[in-house]
């Protein structure tokens, strides 16, 4: 069975940016005893990511996105080619996700053959607040099952 790493990220003191952490921690409880699936919080440098993802067959990232063009709480699944092209990119402190992933490949590291990014539209995220906006909070009960359904289809 292919091994899957699910990394979720966000900032717990930046309003809607924390939605990835909330959903990810709920997802983690679903998979706590599932063989072949590791769910971890990620919050470091791109070079940490390079180390963390080695040895897995599949990488699934969960993070907030802020396109301003989609309803808050809606979910978009980005494929590998989108991620490597920088679409729905995740910023990792001086380097973006696509650069970090390309770095893994260039260094010929044991890199996951399958990449997915589950983006949760969070609207405005740049505000210090430990609470989600009411609009995003209202959508939360359906976000987690929807994300879990996507994950199940990806790892089936």
């Amino acid at each position, binding site marked *: 069975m292919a091994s899957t790493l699910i990394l979720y990220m966000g900032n717990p003191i930046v309003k809607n940016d924390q939605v990835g952490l909330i959903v990810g921690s709920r997802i983690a409880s679903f998979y706590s005893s599932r063989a072949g699936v590791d769910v971890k919080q990620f919050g*470091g440098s791109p*070079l940490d990511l390079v180390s963390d993802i080695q040895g897995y067959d599949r990488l699934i990232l969960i993070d907030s996105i802020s396109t301003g063009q989609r309803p808050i709480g809606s979910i978009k699944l980005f494929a590998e080619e989108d991620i490597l092209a920088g679409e729905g990119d995740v910023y990792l402190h*001086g380097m973006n996700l696509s650069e970090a992933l390309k*770095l893994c490949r260039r260094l010929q*590291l044991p890199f996951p053959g399958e990449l997915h990014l589950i983006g949760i539209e969070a609207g405005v*995220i*740049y505000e*210090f607040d430990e609470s989600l906006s009411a609009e995003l909070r209202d959508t939360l009960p359906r976000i987690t099952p929807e994300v879990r359904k996507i994950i199940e289809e990806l790892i089936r």
Partner: protein
Amino acid sequence: MPQIWDETHKTDQRVIHIEPVTRLEGHAKIDIFLDEKGDVEQTYFQVVELRGFEEFCKGRPAEEMPRIVTRLCGVCPWPHHLASSRVLDTLFAAPPPPTAHKIRELGYCAHMLESHLEHVYALGPAPDFVLGPAADPLKRNVLGVIEAVGLETGSSVIKHRGYAVEIENIIGGKSTHPVFSIPGGVSRPVNQEQIDRIRELADKLVEFTEFTLTVVDDVILSNKEYVDIILNKDLYYHNSYHMGMVDEDGKLAFYGGKMRIMDPNGKIVDNFTENQYLDYVAEHTVPWSYLKFPYLKKVGWKGLTDGVDSGLYRVAPLSRMNVADGMATPKAQAAYDRFFETLGQKPVQYSLSFHWARAIECVYAAERLQQLAHDPEILGKDYRTISTKVAGEGIGIVEAPRGTLFHHYKSDDKGLITDVNLVVASAQNYGAMNLDIRNVAKNLIKGGQISNGILNMVEMGFRSYDPCFSCATHAAIGQMPMELVIHDSTGEEIRRIRR
């Protein structure tokens, strides 16, 4: 061969967009104003993020602060964690025992090392100098560096930086957002098995940091064109004050020392401790940036200008080496001696030499890891002082990778935060970055002639300081869009470049 210069062209557009400026944490943009001849009249390096962290903290239990501040950004969590802890040592009247100080410093040296290595190889000098300032922007990044230096070196960087991260994990509980430092000390001691592993890793890191110095030699110092650029006083150079931390012997320190200030003539003009910082540092606001300009209170704010009469000062590796009498470890001391023999008497004012100084600090951090890991007191069991009262105010200073970091909190008698002020490293270098960007732009952009390489050399004016504007603006956010905007003499925007 690195591509240092490229062909210029005269723009027929009225507006230039550069966005985002690359390899920088936070949000900022550069505005360049041209006169009627197309020469640079003025530049502004603007930080455009909103503030608000201090208000967010008010009313919270003070003991939560060391963990909250690590979320200001993913680049500087350790400095904030430890500066905040030092505040609480005072605010809760709980001076940590020596073992706690040493455990904190040991973890912190690992952080300095991983942060510096990331900048040297991925964000700062490697892309700009290995590939050249005028290299294709799409290749002028860590991937391009690996193409140039080879897979073996690239893999070695990842591996050795990973060793520093492993030490952070051992000491900090978590590498990126440490949780171990608490008021009065640390939450747990270090055991023999952990220290044995740290000793093993520290030995490897010393060897790798010596290799890093040879990379600086081979790539930068042995290239005459680069040396000419570094030593060109019309470009990355200005006469400023310098501030940094030294230990009790006057040697460079990252944690637990006292502050020194050196004037542009090389004279140590002030020494101060944490609780005296308000006598020495003040902040000036400008209408065009959310970031304040710290300046030396005794000299005064004279605007964005250098010299002995201007209160602007610099912090970070070059400044630390300038103010220190030397390094407390042998290999770093040898590198320090060579640095000043090569670049002249103190203070060295060449801004691009921050990169070399950063590489020397890597050696010091690794050697200091060795020293601390072999100090018998690091295994002590007296690692925390329990607080018995709330003193109500505290100030903490540490040297972050990108310079001096001040935290100052006040609380009520229950320990609830009533006031917070952070003066971060990148804010203290903000004036210097503006001066360097202005100097480079004025001397390289003539008659409206620009090129990819010239605009990148303008960006190099801030990159040598390894700035992080997420915490400088106290904003904790994601990607840093940065743009270069060029205006004509009437103030009209003529070109904007975004990447």
